[in-house]
């Protein structure tokens, strides 16, 4: 079947008149066709256009595909035929009050009123402090019990609610309800001064500050036709890889702690800090905030910086390797990791898992290889995929990526890097255009989509953190798993609440 979707590039400026504006029925059947044949949903959202509301889909096969249509007030849901649309349709219902008829599980995503002042699709009253009267999915039976956790958790972590339906120790079903971190970030982008955009992007998810600011920055660079020099692209690549290493190393330690093997827990905690301190050295912030700006970076990597960072990474590399070897060679660790929280490849495909969570279930997709940005065109990113889909696979993929990222940084630091640092400047975005940007952050595919109106003002700003795809992976991993293995599975994903809640 030939479709009317057009092919676009990652970070390419596209004028909005090029977006195929299809009849809804054609849009629906073509989108379903692409996804049913292995395509994946990158974005599917509604946006206002003068007095109307449009739908827009960005799908990916080997290419990025784009088409849109006028949004009906209610429509036969795509999810009922094709699972990967499920959360996107719920989001559209919540944001714009558009009802996907026949959606198998239509419930709110983030608990907020829709933008058009329409009656809430879910019947919530957002003038109340606790707006929802949502009945969680409940398994019934004499032996069934429920465990409710959160929003305030026992550790120093973000808020979310987890509802377990168990029989004995065995979890039959885990339902995850988020929304507590909702700050209205997408809306802030609409009205924000241009000077606030980098700060906002860095605050979408602090542990992915570089990933999200790269997406925002590349979209602005595309629409304002700003050039970035090769040196800046190398430094941004180093920033993104440092972010990946720090988070993966920290989580490997936490996984080790969760199975009561304390040496790597402590070593990884310390080494994670050493990688964060490398970001601190480069840009003055441990999370890379302040590094990436439209047009390049704000800080150079001088020869002295390269020497210091190389020295540190040379010292850390064998330590990381040895701790990783220790972790995976320890039988008590292996016995807890292996076979725990399995998500099959076919479930992972249907849920649309991305990043290490997807790769651990045998889906090799990696934005750095499939849709490279920055300096990744010139790098040879190995294909990481483990077939088993368990905690072991998720840990192993991440441990492998740490060592690969260390090698990438080592090689990038080996030759002089020249860049002209940028200041925060004002810029004018192309009118009536859009840009879609994707980057492989440590959790997987981060994507932003920026649309402008006829005056070049931001008409709509759409953010997708990889956690949007992956939270359902965690819920799936818990099926038929002991409830005491929840922390372990949770840490193997370590998903973002704020990146999801926006």
């Amino acid at each position, binding site marked *: 079947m030939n479709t009317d979707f057009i092919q676009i590039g990652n970070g390419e400026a596209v004028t909005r008149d090029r977006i195929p504006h299809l009849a809804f029925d054609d849009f629906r059947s073509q989108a379903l066709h692409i996804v049913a044949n292995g395509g994946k949903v990158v974005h599917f959202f509604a946006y206002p256009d003068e007095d109307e509301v449009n739908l827009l889909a960005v799908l990916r096969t080997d290419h990025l595909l784009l088409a849109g249509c006028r949004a009906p007030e209610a429509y036969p849901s795509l999810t009922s035929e094709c699972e990967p649309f499920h959360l996107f349709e719920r989001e559209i219902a919540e944001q714009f009050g558009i009802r996907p008829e026949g959606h198998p599980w239509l419930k709110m995503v*983030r608990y*907020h009123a829709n933008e058009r002042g329409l009656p809430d699709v879910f019947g919530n009253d957002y003038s109340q*402090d606790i707006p929802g009267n949502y009945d969680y999915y409940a398994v019934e039976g004499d032996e069934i019990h429920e465990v409710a956790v959160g*929003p*305030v958790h026992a*550790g*120093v*972590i*973000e*808020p979310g609610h987890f509802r377990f339906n168990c029989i004995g120790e065995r979890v039959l079903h885990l339902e995850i309800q988020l*929304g*507590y*971190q*909702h*700050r*209205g*970030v997408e*809306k*802030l982008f609409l009205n924000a*001064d241009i*000077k*606030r955009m980098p*700060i906002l992007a*860095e*605050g*979408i*998810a*602090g*542990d992915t500050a570089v990933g999200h600011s790269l997406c925002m920055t590349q979209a602005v660079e595309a629409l304002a036709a700003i050039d970035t020099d090769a040196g800046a692209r190398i430094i941004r690549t180093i920033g993104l890889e440092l972010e990946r290493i720090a988070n993966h190393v920290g989580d490997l330690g936490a996984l080790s702690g969760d199975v009561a093997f304390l*040496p*790597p827990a402590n*070593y990884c*905690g*310390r080494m*994670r*800090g050493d990688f964060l301190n490398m970001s*601190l050295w*480069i*840009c*003055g*912030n*441990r*999370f890379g*905030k*302040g590094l990436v700006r439209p047009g390049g970076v*704000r*800080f150079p990597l001088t020869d002295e910086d390269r020497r210091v960072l190389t020295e540190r990474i040379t010292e850390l590399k*064998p*330590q990381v390797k*040895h*701790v990783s*070897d*220790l972790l995976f*060679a*320890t039988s008590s660790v292996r016995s807890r990791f292996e076979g725990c929280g399995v998500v099959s490849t076919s479930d992972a495909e249907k849920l649309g898992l991305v990043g290490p969570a997807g790769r651990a279930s045998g889906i090799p997709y990696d934005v750095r290889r499939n849709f490279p940005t920055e300096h990744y065109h010139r790098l040879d990113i190995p294909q990481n995929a483990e077939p088993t889909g368990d905690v072991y696979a998720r840990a192993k993929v991440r441990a492998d990526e740490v060592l690969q990222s260390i090698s990438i940084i080592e090689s990038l630091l080996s030759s002089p890097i020249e860049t002209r640092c940028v*200041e*925060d400047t004002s810029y004018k975005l192309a009118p009536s255009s859009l840009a879609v940007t994707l980057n492989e952050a440590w959790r997987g595919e981060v994507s932003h989509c920026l649309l402008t109106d006829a005056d070049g003002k931001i008409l709509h700003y759409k953010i997708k953190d990889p956690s949007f795809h992956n939270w359902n992976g965690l819920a799936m991993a818990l099926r038929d798993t002991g409830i005491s293995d929840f922390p372990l599975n949770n840490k193997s994903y370590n998903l973002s*609440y*704020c990146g999801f*809640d926006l």
Partner: protein
Amino acid sequence: MLNTLKNRFEQGCRTSAYPKTTIELPARYRGRPQIHAEASSDLAAECAATCPQEAIDAERKIIDLGRCVFCGTCERLSEGRFVSFSQDFELAVAEKDYLLTAGELPSLAEHAKKHFKKLFGRSLQLRQVSAAGCNACEADLNVLATPFFDLARFGINFVASPRHADGIVVTGPVSRNMKTALLQTYEATPAPKVVIAVGSCALSGGPFRGSSEITEGLDRLLPVDLYIPGCPPHPLTNLHALLTYFKSS
């Protein structure tokens, strides 16, 4: 076993001697800002206009550390002539007014409430509530438990229940959806209790100010005893604040 021991020797002892010895942070770290009053009004106005957080009052020549995210835009624009950021990470204050500064901060030790030192000086148990931030503040509070900082050696711990806590540490701009849970956690903490606001979001709404979904400052909801600026505050900023405010010198 041998492998475990080999790793142990390779790792060595990593715990910092702070606060007995000082720690120098890298040159690009942006700590306590210093305003240079001799700079022209025009330059001050230009810095104020460029500040993404609108943290600079050009007329009074002061900066609001509650709003500041330490991005350094003003320092770069003025080439350090109006604002320069020092390597000083000791930023916490006991009164909100002290956040408005030309660079000097009052001694935290002198402004600490004496009865808190008596009550909590030897043992302080804190419950952390994450309320709609970006998780960077939480991450840099968490690292206080790692071997380098090793918070527990000072008798300070993060605990799992507000019932076991002497106070709460709040991060994030307190979203509407998190407000009730935060207030209930506060209520569940036995008195006398302390409230510590960590990070630009908890101090002022931070990057998210202006959103109808958040609260612009925790002090609008709860009495705050200790304000720790930063986006996020460096772990040493947090450590300094906790030690100075609660421990007897």
